[in-house]
């Protein structure tokens, strides 16, 4: 795991401050070298770093899974970069403002050559505090970028009132209650809050969302079409849960943007942790439950038009 090159995906609507953040990452003194995959040349350019142009070519995989898309250009570029891996420590992928983050994220799970040499570190989304509300009305991409994020920078906070800022954050939380949220001005932030997050590492899912298993954190969030739904329960039967979660994500995959879960399996001393992107699931047994931890299970889905009642019923049918 450790010798795989970490990849940070930077998303955000046009003008939100993505390029400012990228330039900050590249100019700050941190002793690290980055290979940067960008869409527009010219705005970024640091001599010491490798900057590569991308075409955002999305390939549908011919495997009968309609939402299973990958970025063909990314596969090719990463293959090329990996032949010169002594030249850089990490990769940053900047997407265009209109990009759907799913094909980018899925590339790191679907393409075995990419998965063997690199790992997705986190999806970082920059949003404009002033204009987000408008974007959420007219741009489905803006919503996807928030739903997908592990880290969200609410940028340009100096341009809005405290009330307006609180409102923006509420809107973000309605879509994605689990991302780390940071308020910034001119994308100024400690880089360790953006880079080296290990957000897709199953071991770290709890660390990133400390209230993930906290019952009181289960508020009702609502957005017109994008929701997060979560359920907490006791022990589950893996014989029932595993077939269900596989079938559910296969059938509803196009609607589910991200999923996460921590489960207490009956007679299993270790925690089962999973996370997924659309239909792609990654799960494993992790460390044992500690004595001071309550053995409980929680699952979370962020997606569109999710049938809360049906998911609840199906999940409850898996309980011991």
């Amino acid at each position, binding site marked *: 795991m450790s010798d795989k090159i970490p990849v940070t995906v930077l998303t955000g609507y046009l003008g939100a401050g993505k390029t400012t953040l990228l330039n900050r990452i590249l100019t700050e003194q941190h002793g690290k070298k980055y290979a940067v995959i960008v869409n527009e040349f010219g705005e970024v350019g640091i001599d010491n770093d490798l900057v590569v*142009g991308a*075409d955002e070519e999305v*390939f549908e*995989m*011919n495997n009968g899974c309609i939402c299973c898309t990958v970025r063909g*250009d990314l596969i*090719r570029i990463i293959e090329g970069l990996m*032949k010169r891996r002594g030249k850089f420590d990490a990769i940053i992928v900047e997407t265009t403002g209109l990009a759907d983050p799913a094909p980018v994220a899925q590339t790191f799970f679907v*393409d075995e050559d990419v998965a063997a040499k690199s790992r997705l570190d986190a999806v970082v989304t920059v949003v404009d505090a002033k204009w987000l509300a408008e974007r959420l009305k007219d741009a489905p991409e803006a919503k996807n970028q928030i739903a997908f994020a592990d880290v969200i920078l609410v940028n340009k906070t100096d341009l809005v009132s405290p009330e307006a800022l609180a409102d923006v954050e509420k809107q973000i939380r309605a879509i994605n209650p689990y991302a780390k949220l940071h308020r910034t001005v001119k994308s100024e932030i400690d880089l360790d809050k953006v880079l080296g997050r290990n957000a897709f590492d199953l071991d770290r899912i709890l660390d990133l969302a400390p209230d993930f298993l906290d019952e009181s954190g289960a508020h009702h969030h609502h957005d017109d079409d994008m929701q997060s739904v979560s359920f907490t329960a006791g022990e589950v039967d893996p014989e029932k849960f595993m077939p269900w979660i596989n079938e559910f994500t296969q059938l509803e995959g196009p609607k589910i943007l991200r999923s996460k879960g921590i489960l207490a399996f009956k007679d299993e001393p270790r925690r089962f942790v999973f996370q997924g992107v659309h239909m792609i699931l990654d799960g494993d047994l992790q460390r044992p439950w500690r004595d001071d931890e309550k053995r409980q299970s929680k699952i979370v889905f962020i997606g569109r038009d999710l049938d809360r009642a049906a998911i609840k019923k199906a999940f409850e049918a898996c309980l011991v």
Partner: protein
Amino acid sequence: MSDAANDSAAPDFTSLTEHVRSFAAEGHVLQAGFIKSEPVLVLAEGEIVIGERRVAPHEDAGILVAAFDGDCIISGGDDGRVMRTLASGESETLGHEKGKWIDALAAKGGAVAWATGKKVSARDAKGVTKSIDMPSTPVGLCFLPKGYRLVMSQYGGAALWFPNTDAAPENLEWKGAHLDITVSPDGRFIVTSMQENALHGWRLADHKDMRMTGYPSKTRCFSWSHDGDWLATSGADAAIVWPFEDKDGPMGKAPKELGVRSAKVSSVAFHPKALVLAIGYDDSCILMCRLTDAAELLVRRASRLEGKVTALAWDKGGKHLLFGTEGGAAGVLTLP
């Protein structure tokens, strides 16, 4: 230096390891070949090793793709340049795509073609360059054996293009993302490797489709036998060799599997005169296998540290086999 010292430790293979002269390439070997009788290695870091000399036609940039054409090495770099390097080490610029990567390359008889993103350029032997914009990025380019015609892989199939005419490319359709591309030596068949761990072929005469599946991973290396009857491929725990001698190609026939091991084949190279295949694996091992009876000879022992075999090439006479690995190991086998 040879690896022959511990030869007795591998009694199950007849070994040729004592006939291998090893040397350090010092960097990921992208491509291997011979110019006259001199072994040549192209390194991803940007150097070309010609015998004992090292040259860097792309200066500080890396090399992404390379091809051999007669006594020249054609290379495409992440500096956007397409360079031709001679055995003397001298080089000239054939094309320059500012700020782009050269993603794919093909060369034949002085003509060179390259792709940067969706743009494909072809430069004929006289130096006239023509370009075309494709609907998607070609990962593989290959000249047809006859005439000045280029075949390009693309998303959803392949396309055939006559660079010296204004005619739009002719499309060969098959759903999915097509990667590398090769043409049979007689020009009858076109074969691509796919993102979905399969090969797809077309018979050029009537565009009849051929599907070749069953690979556990992507095929990234092809080699045609000297008689053009067989296509050897990487991507499985054996070299998968498809029969192409019939008019229908491999349809309805099983491929041969040579050199079955518990490691993945990463590189293949047919002998230029005999039905003998050199097979390189992702654990750095190299075997030589005879197609007729699958007899195996050991060329190089496995060594995880040195990475997968990324380049294999025979000289014209078939007396020498040159190899290079991801980890920078290299060597020449001289057949006894």
